[in-house]
């Protein structure tokens, strides 16, 4: 009976020993009380242990000359030798640069697109038009990358719909979906098609949470549309923008795998190689070995961890909530 034990008597004129009623329960007592909750948590804990923390522990082989053909403890430790080899690898630096390029593209051209869409949509007064528009633009988020790439090839490829129209008008074939030079634009268009609408959701919710009387007060003080947006709307969604920026910065090295792997053959590996495809093609398909691939993945994980901690710290200093707080 936890509730009875924790209520101390309010009157203080009792003897001191009677006041000690908030007896701490022993672990055994708590276990007897909480075992159903522990039982419920067990499958998830077991799952994370096997599929998250066990592989995390396997990262140790990035510091070993690991071979699956000998007992684990006979693998010699080699320090940072694999990382040295990684940074000297002729394919690694381009992959890292490509990854950063796509991440920057996302940050500079994708993120604002969702905000602009949300602002434009927030201006739609008719509720019917709003929900129709939302239904349409959220849908592609649920499509697979295979489907998105297929549709892009069908529409913009050299035999595609638009290419045929151009040919019909006497023009030349389009080679947009197999041209490494314009791949960055293609990636951006695919993102915009698939996820810009979905990215809008969170901004729309933030916009809806702004108190309308602020707008009313500003309008009656003579602030026009643009001033209201600058002084009310944008500050109103600032915490959300910062939150998403932190998340984006933390995942800068994780730009995805499927989109690049799927277009690797038509575009060429030089433009499509990112860190994840690098690990896959060098270490799982290729013969660079277990330790090499693990080192590349660990590099990515550690940089991601550092970035997310730094970004969160900066957000705290700016007086924003960030993603977690020191508690």
């Amino acid at each position, binding site marked *: 009976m936890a509730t009875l034990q924790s209520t101390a008597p309010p009157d203080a004129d009792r003897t001191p020993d009677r006041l000690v009623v908030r007896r701490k329960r022993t672990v055994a007592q708590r276990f007897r009380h909480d075992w159903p909750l522990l039982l419920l948590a067990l499958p998830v804990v077991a799952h994370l242990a096997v599929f998250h923390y066990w592989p995390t522990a396997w990262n140790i082989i990035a510091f070993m000359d690991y071979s699956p053909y000998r007992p684990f403890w006979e693998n010699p430790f080699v320090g940072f030798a694999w990382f040295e080899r990684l940074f000297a690898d002729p394919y690694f630096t381009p992959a890292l640069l490509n990854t950063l390029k796509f991440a920057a593209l996302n940050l500079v051209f994708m993120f604002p697109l969702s905000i602009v869409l949300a602002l434009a949509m927030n201006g739609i007064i008719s509720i019917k038009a709003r929900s129709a528009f939302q239904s349409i633009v959220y849908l592609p988020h649920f499509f697979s990358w295979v489907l998105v790439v297929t549709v892009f090839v069908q529409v913009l490829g050299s035999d595609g719909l638009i290419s045929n129209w151009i040919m019909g008008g006497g023009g030349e074939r389009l080679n947009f979906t197999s041209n490494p030079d314009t791949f960055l634009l293609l990636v951006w268009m695919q993102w915009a098609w698939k996820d*810009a609408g979905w990215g809008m959701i969170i901004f729309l919710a933030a916009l809806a949470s702004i108190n*309308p009387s602020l707008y009313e007060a500003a309008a009656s003080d003579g602030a026009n549309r643009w001033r209201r947006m600058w002084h009310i709307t944008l500050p109103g969604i600032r915490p959300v923008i910062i939150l998403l920026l932190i998340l984006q910065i933390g995942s800068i090295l994780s730009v995805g795998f499927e989109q690049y792997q799927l277009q690797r053959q038509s575009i060429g590996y030089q433009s499509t190689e990112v860190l994840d495809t690098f690990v896959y093609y060098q270490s799982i398909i290729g013969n660079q070995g277990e330790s090499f691939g693990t080192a590349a993945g660990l590099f990515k994980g550690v940089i991601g961890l550092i970035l997310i901690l730094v970004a969160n710290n900066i957000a705290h200093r700016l007086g924003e909530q960030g993603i977690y707080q020191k508690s």
Partner: protein
Amino acid sequence: MTTTDIRATATDLRIKPRRKSNRPIWDEEPSPAGKAVKALFLLCYAAAIVLPIWAVVATSFASEEALTRAGGNLLILPTDVSFQAYREIFSGGALTDSLVMTTMLTVVGTAISMVLTICGAYALSRTGSLLHRPILWLILLTFLFGPGMYPSFLVVQKLGLFNSYWSLILPGAVGTFNIIILRAFFMNSIPGELLDAAKMDGAGEFRTLFRIVLPMSKAILAVIALFYAVGYWNLYFQAVLYTPGLDTQPIQVVLQRMLMSSQGLPDGAQAAAQYQSQGEAAPTAALKMAVVVCTIVPIVIMYPFIQKHFTKAVITGAVKG
């Protein structure tokens, strides 16, 4: 009648004839040019999404002659309706197998994921219980650091799951983000008094979960189930990584091979050879588009039921995560 009432009525009378929309009174009507630009922007964006999907559907119903006449691989206006492509998909060949397998994968995977997520979220929603904080940390830490592709691959191999259907379900069965979303919902939207009352009446944790908490969370459970189901239905990367040797591949892998073979790319060579050995022509545009339609249809059917709850789920996750 007080003065304020009269004034309110007067305002209504003055405003009403002029106002057709429910735009707030203080908001001035935007300029026609501004309105046009905004409308054009939104319409173009919506059209860029709808038109390709429409062309895909139209092409999937086109006959081969119509496609040849149009001289392309997508049609905007269908000239005739043919079910040839769909007949081919459901005729019991490799495509049928793949669709059946992907459906089973989605159903089994979603069920497993939901059970794990619900149990975990409920256990973690009871703050102050034994080991509550360590378990919560165990989950939150997964957001900060991922184990990496190679070690995960190694563990799947060591468990003997390589080239097994279970490797498509088990490694990704728990979405820790979904657990946090659901936990936040349990904690914020289900009144604690209700749980206390159930306890007073002698209901244990399991009974509370099944009789009180779950019936009150149907909407959010539907959204999370949709997220999981879409993940399994669209599964591609895991199949490439963990099950390259399976005969029956998930539908996304099959679609990818069809795409590659029609682009004349090396990855498609295997698929093209397979078609030739079976005495079939390479997939026509109609067949490819029909497969695309088959992968879209389940999503589009589920979508309207769940769409109105998206925002809630996304926001809960973002704010409490």
